[in-house]
Structures are given as C-alpha cells and as structure tokens.
C-alpha cells in the first residue's frame, strides 16, 4: 500500500477510535463528577493508542525491510545467475530496483531486466506484510486503549503526557539539525582530509580541483585564494558600501527624520532585505557588472572581465544595508536618554552629540551588528555565483574576477559528479570552514550585544 494511502487509513482509524471512545465515555458519564476526564480526553487517548504505535511500527518496518528484501532476493533461484563480485552484483540489483520503481525507464545492464519480475514479486509480498503488520498494531493498540475506558481512568493526564512528549521532541529537532549539520560536515571533511592534507588545504595558494590527479592532488586544493576572495567581497567591499549607508541611514531616520517619514521609509528599506538573493545576483550580472566594466575601461584597465569582485561586493553591500541599519538603530536606541540630553544641554549640536556621545556609547552594539552582517555576507551564495566568477585569483584589484567559498561549494557539487571524489568532498570541507567562521562571528556578536544591553540596564 502506498505511504499516503496508509497514512490516510491510519488517520481514519484514529478518527473512528476517537468517536467510539468518546461515545463510550459519554455513556459512562451518568452524573456530575463521575468521570475523571472529559469524554474527549478518552477519545484522544484511544486515538493516540491507535496511531502512535502503528506509526512507530511502520517506521521500524521501513528501516528493517530493505535488508529482508535483499536477503529474500539473494535466496531466490534467479540469484544464482548473478556475478559473484559483490560490487557488480549490487549495481545490477540496485538497477533492478530502479526499474521496478519506474517501469518506463531503460536498463543499462541487460541482466537487471531479468530481475524486475522477481523484485516486483518480493516487493509486493513485503509490502503486504508491512501493511498487515501496521493494521494489526493499530488494532491491538486501539483495543488496548478501548479496554482502559473507565469512569475513574485518568485519560487526561495520559494524553497530556503524550502532548508534552510531542512538544519535547519538536524542540529537540533544533539540536538534531545542528548535530546533523556538524556530523555531516565533519564526517565528509574527514574523508576529504584522508586524501588532501589539512595543512595544504588551509595554507595552499593554488586552487584548481580540476587538474588534481596523482600524488600532487594535495597541492591543487589550496583554499587561501577562496578565503581571500570571500573576505575581499563579503567583508571589505560589501562593508565599505553597507556600513556608511546603513549607519548614516539609521542615524538620519532615528535622529532627524519626522515620524511620518520614518513610518514610510523604514519598511521601504526593509524591502531591500526581503528581495531574494537570486534577484540581486541577476541584477548584479545584468546591470551592475557592465557598469563596473565600463568604469574599469574608463580607468584605463585593459580588457577587464565582466565578472568582477566589485560588482558582486557592491550589490551584496546593498543587500546588507537594512541589516546594519536595524542593528545600529537598536543600539543607538539603547543608549540612555540622559546621555543625549546631557550632551545637548551642554550646548552641543545634534550632530556633535551623535558623533561624540551616541556613537561611542553605542559602538559595541554597532560592531556586533557589523559582525553579524559580515557573517551573513560571507555566507551569501547566489550573488557571487551569478556575478563574481570562477577564477581563484589572489589579488587586491576590485575589477578582477574573484571566487568565493560559497561559489566553489556550488560549483563543486552541481553537475555530474561522483560523490566520493575529493572534488566533491572538498565542498564539505569548505562548508565546515564557512560554518565555523559564521558560528564564531555570531557567538561573539551575540555575546557583545548581551553585555552591551546589560551595561545600560
């Protein structure tokens, strides 16, 4: 039975269980205070007993059945014709499974076609067993729950216990995701470092995974040019655009603009953060990059490339503006009014107050905001994929084409690849570096913000 139908049936069983249990509890309800729990709670109790054990059983079945299917397949008489080499055998079998799943597709290995019939037979057999198993568990669970319905049975506490367990599991998902990310990155990076030495990776100056073969493979994975490109685009060019514009924008909006202007301009600025990055990337490639190229020509550069660090960096900076601006806004607003009033009372003009009092007082918050902005900029992918270029250059020329960590991750993992080559594994190593750097930036920034808030409270 397909998964969606099975789920639907389970939901239906659950509903039936809920209704019958509630009806029975209602019949027991002969007067005030007779029942411990509301009839609805008894309904939920039975419904949970039907659905949850059945789902658990189904998941366990889904995990163990492929091994049993494989064993059954190997025991079938047709298996005798398979080659004895386990790798060859497995590739034929996996192809047979593919064919059984999509009947229209073509076989690469003619042997696989002989197995489609066998696979189909075994699949359907195990599918029926699984369905029957789920049905039996659901029935037993429901029957058990149903016998529990008594006037004094504490159905409510049981149901609430289950609800609490559900909430707990949901909140553990966040930890699970973090652990999943770290485990994935560390595991694949470990496999990469089995081929390429970590020292070469972190300090090498040459990045050209395409021609990495033989004993020199380690020398072609020097990631310094990527780190430099990432820092140059994300932390230098983008910040040169974003910090002045974001900071001055925030100062103008909070200190000078009237309430009406602020009400209209602030959401408009927020739109800048809401535009998808692929749109920025397209804009950078279509409009900004040719302008930068013309600028480079006018400055006397010969044959500048259309893909430049400057185009990507400027557009990224614009994307970051609302981010810097809202962080600056928050930290300036957190400076106590008394400090501002004191400065103004001493005869300082508003701009002097801002420059000499507010900004120094808000500096930790602003710096933390900039760090968060940097961590966002270096993790940004689409703009650099569309506008920055693939060549790993180690140069300080903003008109040069430059590549970044995120660009290379995308480049290495899209298109035809074998999953186990050092080329694809290196993407995970780059991902790990990116993850660690953004994590450190975020942790420091959040800590600075927290301490800064406490200082003024």
């Amino acid at each position, binding site marked *: 039975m397909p998964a969606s139908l099975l789920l639907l049936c389970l939901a239906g069983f659950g509903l039936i269980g809920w209704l019958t249990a509630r009806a029975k509890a209602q019949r027991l309800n002969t007067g005030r205070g007779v029942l411990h729990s509301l009839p609805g709670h008894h309904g939920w109790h039975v419904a949970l007993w039907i659905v949850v054990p059945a789902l658990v059983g189904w998941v366990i079945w889904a995990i163990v059945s492929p091994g049993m299917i494989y064993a059954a397949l190997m025991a079938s008489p047709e298996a005798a014709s398979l080659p004895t080499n386990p790798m060859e055998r497995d590739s034929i079998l996996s192809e047979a499974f593919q064919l059984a799943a999509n009947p229209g597709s073509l076989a690469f290995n003619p042997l696989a076609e002989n197995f489609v019939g066998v696979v189909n037979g075994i699949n359907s057999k195990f599918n029926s067993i699984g369905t029957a198993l789920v049905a039996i568990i659901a029935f037993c669970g429901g029957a058990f729950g149903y016998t529990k319905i008594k006037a004094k049975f504490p159905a409510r506490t049981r149901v609430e216990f289950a609800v609490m367990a559900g*909430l707990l599991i949901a*909140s553990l998902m966040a930890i699970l995701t973090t652990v999943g*990310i770290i485990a994935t990155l560390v595991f694949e990076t470990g496999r990469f470092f089995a081929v390429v030495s970590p020292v070469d990776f972190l300090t090498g100056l040459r990045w050209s995974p395409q021609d990495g073969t033989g004993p020199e493979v380690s020398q072609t994975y020097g990631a310094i040019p990527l780190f430099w490109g990432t820092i140059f685009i994300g932390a230098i060019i983008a910040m040169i655009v974003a910090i002045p514009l974001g900071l*001055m924008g925030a100062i103008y909006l909070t200190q*000078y603009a009237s309430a009406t202007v602020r009400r209209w301009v602030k959401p408009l600025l927020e739109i800048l953060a809401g535009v*998808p990055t*692929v749109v920025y990337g397209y804009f950078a490639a*279509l409009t900004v990059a040719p302008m930068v190229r013309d600028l480079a020509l006018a400055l006397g550069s010969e044959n500048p490339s259309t893909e430049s660090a400057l185009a990507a960096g400027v557009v990224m900076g614009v994307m970051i503006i609302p981010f810097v601006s809202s962080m600056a806004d928050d930290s300036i607003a957190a400076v106590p009014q008394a400090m501002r009033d004191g400065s103004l009372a001493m005869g300082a003009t508003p701009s002097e107050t801002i420059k000499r009092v507010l900004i120094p007082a808000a500096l930790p918050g602003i710096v933390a905001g900039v760090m968060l902005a940097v961590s966002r900029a*270096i993790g940004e*992918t689409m703009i650099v994929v569309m506008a920055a270029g693939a060549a790993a250059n180690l140069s300080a020329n903003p008109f040069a084409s430059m590549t970044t960590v995120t660009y290379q991750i995308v480049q290495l993992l899209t298109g035809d690849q074998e999953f186990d080559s050092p080329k694809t594994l290196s993407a995970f190593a780059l991902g790990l570096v990116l993850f660690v750097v953004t994590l450190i930036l975020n942790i420091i920034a959040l800590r600075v913000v927290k301490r800064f808030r406490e200082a003024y409270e």
Partner: protein
Amino acid sequence: MSNWHTPDANARLKRRYGAERRFKAVGLIAILLSLGFLAFLLVTMVANGVSGINWSFLSNSDSTDAATAGVWGSLKGSLLTMGVTLALSFPMGVCAAIYLEEFAPRQRWVDWVEVSINNLAAVPSVIFGLLGLAMFINVAGMPRSSALVGGVTLALMTMPVIVIAGRNAIKAVPPSIRDAALAVGASRVQTVFHHVLPLALPGILTGTIIGMARALGETAPLLMIGMRAFIATPASGVTDPTSVLPMQIFLWSDEVDQAFVRNTSAAIIVLLVFLLAMNGLAIYLRNKFETRW
C-alpha cells in the same frame, strides 16, 4: 563674563552649524542612495520583463525556446515545496516554541536548544543544502531534485524563524490570562492550548509568513540538492523532479539567448509579486490582530 559675540566665536558657531547641516545632508543622501538602488533594481526588472508577462508565460512550463517558455512548472514546484515546508516547519516550530516558552525546565540542555536555534537562524543557507545533499539524498535516499527533499531542507531552515517568532508571540501574552485559566481548574496543557495559543496565533502566523517568504526566495540550498535540471513538465507530486521559481530565474539568467532576459525579468516580477503579497498579508495580520495588553 565672556563675550559671546566676538567674530571668533561667531565664526566657530557658523562652522559648527555648517557641520550640522552637512551631517544631516549625508544622512539624507545615505537614505536616498539606498532607496534609489531599490528603485533602480525594480525599474530595471519591470522595464525588461513587464512585456513578457502574459497568459502563455504564466501557464507554460520551461522550454528551450524563449518565446514559449513559461513559469507554470516552476511556480507549481514552488507551491509544492512550500507546502512540504509549511507542513513540517509550522507544527514543529509552534510545538518547540510552546515547549521552550511554557514548559521547559531551567536546565542545561534547554540552554543548548536555545543556542542551537539562535545559531541555526544565522547559518548560511548553502550549509543547509550540504546537509540536504548528504543526509536526505545520499543517506535517506529521497528522490533527487524533488519538492519533497527541497521542502524538508527548507523546513529545517524555516523552523528557527518560526520558533523565534512564536516564542516572542507567546511571551507577549500576559501572565494574568494563564493565571485566570489555572485558577478555574484548567490543566497547564489546557491553559496553553485553549487560551495562550489562540492569543499568540496572529504573531506566530506573521512570523511564519515571513519565514515562508524567505524560503520561497531561497535558491542556494536547492542548487545543492539538484534542482538545477531542465524540467519541461510540471510535477504531479512531491516526489517528482521539479524546478522552483528562483531556480528558474537562475537557469534562465545563464542562457546565452538574449530573449531570455525578458523571461528572467518577467519571472522575477512574478516572484516579487508573490513575496510582496505574503509580506503584505503578514503586515495586515499584525495590524489587524495586534493587541496591546
């Protein structure tokens, strides 16, 4: 007594007022530059793309010919992906927010949950793509470039946003509501589900819509899980290979044929209209249901 009207003092005052005006002008210029860039971007897209929007563009799927290519296939893919994302991240996010805000004991592991939620919200999206590729495709064997695997990946990304918004909304419900419910004999679970959650729901929904809008515009993690393929037939289910709207924009932007510039810009307009509608809905919800306690 000092004399305030010496020529020297006047000149200094003039200089200071001049600095004041210049400072203000710089702030205004910063705002105008930012807004000018936004206007420039939008005008460029509209100028390039508005002529490309017609019924056949909205109802056709991808094609190698720019004139017959349309966005329906990728739009449908986006809707399917968003459906999977919403179905996973909304219940999970709300449940996690309820637990952390209402029931969690003050213990060490709860701090770890909070730290990891805050960090997940700031992890670069491309990392989620790596997770999706390694875990969901290579380990769990989900179908490549399908709405299912895309939706699950984006759900992991969206969940922290929903949890953070949900916690703020739940925190904003005054304790007197809880006390009143508990005082008339409701259990803690009943208090939360019958009283706190309905009051917090508008805030949670606003956060959810904003998270979904972010997921709708997301491209990088989907690149990792193979949604880069050319797909000419709309997907009929969540396990079919599909494209999504931002990915369609990315694919068309790579085309050499100049005619695709119009298509790309038109698809961007469609995407921006969707995002604008979602954000508008979020603002409307916030304004309509916002309660000041």
